């Protein structure tokens, strides 16, 4: 059966954007690890250290894992006056890394 190229083009657009639109409408969509599928800011839950990301703040981690901020700062020899709103990735130094924080936190939670 012969097909008009215009119809072919419309089919492509309807199928592609229809599926994406459908997924969005169904809540199966997130364009950032910082956002939930409903568009709200994603926060650590405290269930697994793997969820800790560089964009999270010291305060986010401290609250979610119930670990005093001062203890985290001391463990990694960070200045005691470091604000809780500081993103983890901006603290990357020889003594601090996100993966290092995950390991330390996992060990501390196991104790």
């Amino acid at each position, binding site marked *: *059966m012969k097909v008009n190229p215009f119809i072919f083009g419309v089919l*492509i657009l309807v199928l592609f954007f229809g599926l994406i639109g459908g997924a969005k409408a169904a809540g199966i969509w997130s364009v*950032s690890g910082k956002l939930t599928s409903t568009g709200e800011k994603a926060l650590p839950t405290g269930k697994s250290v793997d969820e800790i990301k560089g964009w999270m703040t010291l305060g986010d981690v401290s609250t979610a894992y119930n670990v005093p901020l001062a203890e985290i700062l001391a463990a990694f020899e960070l200045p005691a006056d470091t604000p809780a709103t500081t993103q983890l990735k901006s603290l990357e130094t020889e003594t601090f890394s996100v993966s290092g924080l995950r390991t330390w936190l996992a060990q501390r939670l196991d104790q």
Partner: protein
Amino acid sequence: MTTAIHAPSFGQVKPRRKGLAALLTHHTFRRLTQLGVFLFIAAIAIRHTLVGEGGSTITASWEAYCPMGGLETLYKYITSGGKYVAHVHLSNLVVLVATLAVSLVARNAFCGWLCPLGFIQEMVSRFSAFVQKRVPGVRGAVKTLKKRGAKLAVLDRYLRFLKYAVLVWSVGGAAAYGFMVFRDVDPWAALWGLLELSVSAGLVVLVIVLVASLFVERPWCRYACPLGAATGIVSKLSPFYLKRESDACKNCAICTKACPMGLPVHTATTIKSVDCVGCLECVDECPREGALELKLGVPVFGK
């Protein structure tokens, strides 16, 4: 006095389109679609760069809309119960599903109608053709270069397999190492990385692709694109195909010259190549009624 307008019969030369009719072609439709997708991604990338990542406003990165990211994270997503490799989100998987669905139904049409990197390559080739048409010196130089490089054309069919190796490496590498090994050499990532003054090996690949596009259409798609390799395989199951009617065709080879993927359309009867991007430029350019048409059916085989 009345003028009767007769549609050309089978095999006759199609009447030349004039005025608005010349503009209202599927070619214009395709170009507008490609441009729209490119501008959307550009707007996303610019906004993300301007807003930055440190503030309270969270913006999407252009990477969140790339189906290749979905392909690279697929292994980790399945084996880890829903986790992604870095820089990939749920949106990548959704766009991947949409891309594969388009390929399954409408051949490799994602590449021909929606992929912005394919669009950029086509624009560079059009620019090259534009300059060659108007500057005899450039035309002559390109002609000489192509003549000298004609012997290399034999490599074309072998080089086309390279993209499958890139596919295995990029998806296998992400599965083995847990991060996107392809990202550093990805020309698309390199293009938007420039907004953040980030330079990677992908920038070298991007420059090679753009320079090559001056001489060969869609070089990245033909030889190296891992996403096109994957969608091409899926597209084999599509019910759409191109049919050349030898009774109407005069073997002028205009269709072959129009094909951005360099497929020998004028020597085939049924075109179902994994490299066909469904752009339908060949159908648009074919001067004879009924000689080359898009068909819906169930052909399993074809060039």
